């Protein structure tokens, strides 16, 4: 199992890109509050785009500061719509305050688990504004597609003795016993501190056995900036978990996680050109800036930085050669290729995202190479940018992370 499956987290701005470029990814992940808020739109999208999907129940937010999910002092509408779907008790509890471990008594856990699973299972069966057209389109009577797997309620675990550890595990076990038909994948949502605690990780690996698969999320794990020892810990967690020979997905990840396909990671999810890491407490109202994906460095640079860098070094060969970028280059009169290139990219804002998913697909295919070839590829790009290109590091164009990643792969051999 080498090729890494690419899942993109659904966002309304990316809907057309995902619809028109289905050959460039493997599946869709959807946050539950987004699913509920854009219910009709997403139901129709999933009917048109027949890709595997899963719904992230995002229950962890209810145990955090509720201002994270508020706007103008009230719960955001997307969460207000979602909460009733998780049973009558959740809303009552949240009126008082965020969830605390003492709230998580058996009866409430039973109710929460049943409703969270039911929401995911029946999402595509929800009445849709467009459903009257299903008969015309010949889709009436067709069984609604089920999610690839179901996710139990889960909560953030900051350290070994965090009470939310047992609560998340109990939810996972309850859901496994409740669900007879579909696969249940618990989310292992932990801090970096937890990952660094070998005793905690050993216990986790012995507790989380017997499930149909797993999803993992290390809070705010920056694959590019993480210390090499932490990258190795992440690799080891995946490697050990994969000994159960079950699928494993990373919920917020990037190229380094793609490399982890060599150690048993089945696939990973991110936004389209954003969202490769996520902290447990993300402030509301954040919109990802427009950035250009630098394929040699597996990183993204703001437009201005990218213009400056490529212009400085006048290396046209450094510009990407994917179908998107090749077409743009061919349309330039070449008097100033870099300026033309970025002007044209900017004139059609979705092009930078299509360029990103095109490169990501190429990278996924490249994972079929053996480990030595991949290490050579990382070393080659690191050496070029670090040694040959400049004695002065440009922001966003550093290459140290490629060297770290190569070392993580090398030390596993």
């Amino acid at each position, binding site marked *: 199992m080498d090729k890494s499956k690419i899942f993109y987290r659904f966002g309304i701005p990316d809907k057309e890109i995902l619809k028109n470029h289905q050959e460039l990814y493997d599946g869709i992940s959807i946050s539950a509050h987004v699913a509920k808020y854009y219910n009709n739109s997403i139901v129709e999208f999933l009917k048109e785009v027949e890709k595997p999907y899963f719904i992230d129940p995002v229950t962890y937010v209810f145990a955090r500061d509720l201002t994270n999910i508020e706007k103008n002092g009230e719960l955001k509408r997307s969460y207000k719509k979602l909460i009733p779907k998780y049973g009558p008790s959740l809303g009552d509890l949240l009126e008082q305050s965020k969830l605390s471990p003492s709230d998580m008594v058996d009866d409430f856990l039973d109710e929460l688990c049943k409703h969270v699973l039911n929401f995911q299972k029946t999402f595509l069966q929800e009445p849709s504004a467009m459903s009257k057209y299903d008969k015309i389109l010949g889709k009436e009577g067709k069984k609604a597609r089920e999610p690839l797997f179901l996710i139990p309620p889960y909560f953030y675990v900051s350290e070994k003795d965090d009470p939310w550890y047992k609560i998340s595990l109990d939810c996972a076990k309850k859901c496994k016993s409740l669900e007879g038909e579909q696969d249940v994948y618990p989310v292992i949502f932990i801090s970096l501190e937890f990952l660094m605690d070998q005793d905690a990780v050993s216990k986790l690996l012995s507790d989380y056995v017997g499930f149909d698969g797993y999803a993992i999320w290390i809070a705010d794990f920056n694959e590019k900036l993480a210390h090499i020892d932490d990258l190795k810990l992440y690799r080891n967690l995946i490697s050990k978990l994969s000994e159960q020979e079950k699928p494993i997905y990373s919920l917020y990840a990037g190229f380094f996680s793609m490399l982890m396909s060599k150690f048993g990671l089945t696939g990973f999810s991110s936004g389209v050109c954003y969202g490769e890491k996520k902290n447990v407490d993300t402030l509301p109202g954040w919109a990802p800036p427009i950035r250009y994906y630098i394929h040699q460095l597996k990183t993204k640079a*703001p437009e*201005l930085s990218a*213009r*400056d860098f490529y*212009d400085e070094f006048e290396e046209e060969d450094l510009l990407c050669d994917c179908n998107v970028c090749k077409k743009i280059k061919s349309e330039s009169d070449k008097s*100033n290729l*870099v300026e033309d290139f970025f*002007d044209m990219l900017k004139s059609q804002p979705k092009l930078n995202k299509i360029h990103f998913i095109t490169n990501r697909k190429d990278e996924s295919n490249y994972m079929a190479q053996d480990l030595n070839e991949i290490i050579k590829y990382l070393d080659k790009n690191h050496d070029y940018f670090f040694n040959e290109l400049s004695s002065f590091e*440009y922001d966003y164009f550093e290459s140290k992370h490629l060297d770290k990643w190569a070392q993580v792969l090398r030390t596993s051999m």
Partner: protein
Amino acid sequence: MVYEKSLMKPLEEHYMGQGFETYFEVPMYSKKIDMVCISPDFSNIIAVEAKVSRWQKALKQAMAHRLCANKVYVAMWHEFAHRPNIDLFDKFGIGLLEVNGGVKLIHEAKESNKNHQSVKQNLREYLIKESRGKNG
């Protein structure tokens, strides 16, 4: 203790004395330029990145300003203005100013040959709008 904002007043006086209009924290795509000076006919644009002592960071930030300004400078507090690697400034065509009550030119900037017209026009339009707001 000296802060970045301590450099702004002398810089403003220096460039206004040369007939420029000055603007602070000018948005440029996802970045901000500490100070932009523009000639009355909007033809000449100078960008200044100010730092008390961290010249490497200032230089990195100043690089992208070459896309939209005629000349780009890093301005530093006089106590630290001897630290920068002038060869590096020269290599990238960026000037260096020393600030201590007044402003002293340490290294002249080269006229930028890195302008991208769309980026420069974007900045020019912002400054014209700001100028109209300032002058009523």
